[in-house]
């Protein structure tokens, strides 16, 4: 029994070792497989982590690229409507948040190569990458707080860029929010003019007209004599308008080419938009002629001929012999006769007619004593004795004439404003070589008052009348008198759009009928409201003064040699010490630099492809702007020094100052510009010009999380 039991017992234990070993192996296998599974899980997890890291890096990079591309495009000067900068600028000029977002997303962001960038960032990798992106614009707020003068597109807001990158199902999203500002970098309406002086007269009627001629016979200028600035509105002169004639004769030259004084001129086939002022002390008026094809009665009216009309003082005044000597070529060309001398005392600023290649070029504006008008007058040359006009309007068809004549009622008293005779087609001096003269008096009488329908009309304006002194005339260069500081100009006249077809269009967001400079900005604001548009403030530390420009060079210059403001407004804080802009500087992009002290502007480089483009403004809040005029290149900026004591000076007064841009100053002392020079208006500084807003409206993207 015991033996059998032992056998059974031994038989029961048989295989236990094997069982234990197999069980152990099984458990060990389970443990090791579990460990392996865990390790694999961790490995996969770490791989997933790396994919997330890679996706995040891609999203950050793409977001960074979008912001950078946006900044780059916003300073692109390409005017092609389909260019990225143009598309983006157009989008930012909208005022609806959703419209801005959608425009950026569909018109710009889809075309900037984001998928190409993703491919570049993930090249040589085996995983699949996908990209999603979005733009959200929020908190858009107009800059107009009721205390300034703003265009309707000037605003601030926030833009959020969202980028989502998926790499093998590992998705990462990156959002970046930036503030933005849309601003006009140049102040209206000053930049409509090439010269604006707050205190022009200063008790000196002669001002720039101080040139001393050696002898009447030679007409040559004494070299040490102060000479005038030559003001040129518009394009450079051509061979038919030799500036040199006028430079040396103490005159301010306001002609140029097809763009005329006071920016009234259009160009080419769309005619001119002229102002004409008529003598009535009680009711100064202007006649706004628009010779585009739109208004009733104005169609096809083309003032085509520019001729000299010699003032009575020139012909009969005490210095008539001097004038005849000085103007010898003109007197020779158009000799005075007993029967007719040209009694016009108006300024003649007629543009060229595009309709005839032989049409005369623009005449020059003479600013001398006893001029009756500052701006364009109807070309109306009259015989002093008979008052028979001898010139010169043509190309008004009879049909258009009749249409104009019947378009409005006659205005009582208006006839007194005109020479009471008609232009006639006969007795035209052969020298004029004019054809098709047409009587215009009925046309003028029929023109209505103050219409707002775009037709030709008379309109009130601040113009002074009658005989003006030189200084009064001079004041009016900026359409701004010393006694009447109200600028009240019809929209199309106050800020005439420079694109040919836009004469009759309302100016964007502005009603300039009652623009008063004091309402645009406080009288004591030397920046005319630009301080509210400052995008960046640059502080010169620790060394003020010249150090300020070094800060600019480091941060707002392209290759440290060309100003790269990106159409923004910068304020340089120097503690009132001021700033010196070094010689040889150029402009990569335009914009506005406001300095809290006096500014010295160095010479400009000669590498600029255009003297007009891009436009630059330099403002001194206090003190003067001194131009280093010793170089061979023009100063390419609009200079503003409107604070008390603000003036524009030359570092070398006996050398000419050549400026392309404009001047707005508190005072201007011609004796500090004895060398004369040229002041050429830069139409690219005109903020109401659509061409300007297309290219140069300032859209500034701020730092992440910051304000701008």
């Amino acid at each position, binding site marked *: 029994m015991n033996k059998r039991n032992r056998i059974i017992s031994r038989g029961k234990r048989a295989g236990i070792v094997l069982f234990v*070993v197999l069980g152990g192996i099984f458990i060990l296998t389970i443990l090791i497989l579990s460990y392996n599974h865990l*390790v*694999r899980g961790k490995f996969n997890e770490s791989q997933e982590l790396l994919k997330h*890291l890679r996706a995040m890096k891609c999203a950050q990079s793409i977001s960074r*690229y979008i*912001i950078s591309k946006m900044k*780059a495009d916003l300073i692109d000067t390409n005017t092609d409507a389909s260019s990225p900068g143009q598309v983006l600028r157009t989008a930012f000029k909208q005022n609806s948040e959703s419209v801005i977002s959608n425009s950026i997303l569909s018109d710009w962001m889809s075309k*900037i190569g984001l998928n190409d960038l993703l491919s*570049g960032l993930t090249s*040589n990798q085996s995983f699949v990458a996908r990209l999603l992106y979005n733009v959200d614009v929020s908190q858009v707020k107009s800059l107009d707080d009721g205390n300034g003068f703003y265009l309707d597109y000037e605003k601030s807001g926030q833009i959020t860029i969202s980028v989502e990158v998926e790499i093998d199902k590992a998705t990462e999203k990156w959002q970046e929010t930036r503030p933005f500002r849309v601003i006009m970098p140049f102040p209206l309406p000053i930049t409509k003019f090439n010269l604006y002086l707050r205190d022009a007269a200063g008790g000196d009627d002669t001002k720039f007209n101080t040139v001393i001629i050696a002898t009447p016979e030679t007409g040559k200028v004494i070299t040490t004599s102060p000479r005038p600035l030559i003001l040129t509105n518009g394009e450079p002169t051509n061979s038919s308008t030799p500036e040199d004639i006028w430079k040396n004769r103490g005159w301010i030259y306001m002609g140029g080419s097809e763009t005329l004084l006071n920016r009234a001129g259009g160009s080419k086939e769309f005619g001119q938009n002229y102002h004409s002022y008529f003598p009535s002390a009680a009711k100064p008026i202007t006649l706004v002629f628009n010779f585009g094809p739109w208004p009733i009665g104005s169609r096809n009216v083309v003032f085509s001929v520019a001729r000299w009309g010699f003032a009575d003082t020139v012909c009969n005044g005490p210095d008539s012999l001097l004038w005849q000597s000085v103007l010898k070529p003109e007197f020779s060309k158009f000799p005075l006769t007993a029967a007719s001398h040209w009694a016009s005392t108006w300024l003649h600023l007629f543009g060229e007619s595009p309709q005839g290649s032989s049409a005369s070029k623009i005449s020059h504006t003479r600013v001398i004593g006893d001029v009756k008008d500052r701006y364009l007058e109807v070309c109306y040359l009259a015989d002093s004795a008979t008052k028979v006009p001898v010139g010169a309007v043509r190309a008004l068809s009879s049909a258009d004439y009749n249409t104009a004549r019947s378009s409005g009622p006659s205005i009582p008293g208006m006839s007194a404003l005109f020479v009471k005779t008609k232009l006639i087609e006969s007795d035209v001096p052969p020298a004029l070589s004019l054809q098709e003269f047409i009587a215009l008096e009925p046309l003028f009488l029929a023109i209505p008052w103050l219409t707002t329908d775009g037709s030709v009309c008379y309109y009130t304006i601040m113009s002074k009348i009658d005989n003006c002194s030189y200084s009064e005339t001079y004041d009016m260069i900026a359409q701004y008198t010393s006694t009447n500081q109200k600028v009240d100009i019809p929209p199309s006249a106050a800020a005439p759009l420079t694109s040919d077809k836009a004469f009759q269009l309302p100016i964007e967001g502005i009603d300039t009928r009652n623009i008063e400079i004091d309402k645009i900005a406080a009288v004591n604001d030397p920046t005319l409201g630009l301080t509210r548009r400052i995008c960046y403030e640059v502080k010169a530390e620790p060394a003020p003064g010249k150090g300020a420009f070094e800060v600019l060079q480091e941060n707002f210059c392209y290759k440290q040699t060309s100003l790269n403001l990106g159409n923004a407004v910068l304020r340089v804080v120097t503690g009132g010490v001021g700033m010196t802009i070094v010689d040889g500087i150029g402009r990569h992009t335009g914009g506005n630099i406001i300095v809290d002290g006096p500014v010295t502007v160095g010479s400009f480089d000669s590498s600029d492809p255009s003297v007009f483009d891009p436009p630059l403004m330099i403002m001194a809040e206090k003190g003067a702007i001194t131009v280093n005029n010793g170089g061979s290149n023009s100063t390419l900026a609009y200079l503003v020094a409107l604070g008390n004591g603000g003036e524009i000076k030359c570092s070398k007064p006996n050398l000419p100052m050549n400026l392309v841009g404009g001047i707005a100053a508190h005072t201007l002392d011609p004796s500090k510009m004895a060398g004369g020079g040229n002041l050429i208006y830069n139409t690219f500084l005109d903020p109401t010009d659509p061409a300007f807003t297309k290219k140069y409206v300032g859209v500034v993207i701020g730092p992440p999380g910051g304000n701008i």
Partner: protein
Amino acid sequence: MKRRGMSLLEILIASGIMIAAMVPLWGLMGSSHKQVTLSADEIRVSQLAVEILEQIENKAWLPLDGDYAIVPLSGELLSIDSKVKVQIGSFPEYLALGGKINVSRFPAGTSTEIGKVIRLILNYKSKEQIGKEDKIYELSTFVSGY
């Protein structure tokens, strides 16, 4: 005697089975360990890559297009093109880091360059692969010129 022999045989068979089973299991464990090590090395290298690229981004390094060879050393400054230096974090010596930075403008073929695509390619040796072919880790970023 016969019964005792069978017990021994059992043990021998069990040992055989044990050995036969343990060999692949041990291999499996080794493989797991290897993966852990490889993964740890890759993570460390990716951290180093992120550190290098972030410093390059912050310094807005915009060199000429091309390849720039680098040999990062643990805890030392890495001079890339004599203009920019980046601090390298510490890492095990066995990684023996080397590699290059590939720089290319973006967008390519346009007149306006917005910035550079910087591709950091790091070659390293894993602890588990000493003497064998280098591992490669690549990470890219975009450095803005604006």
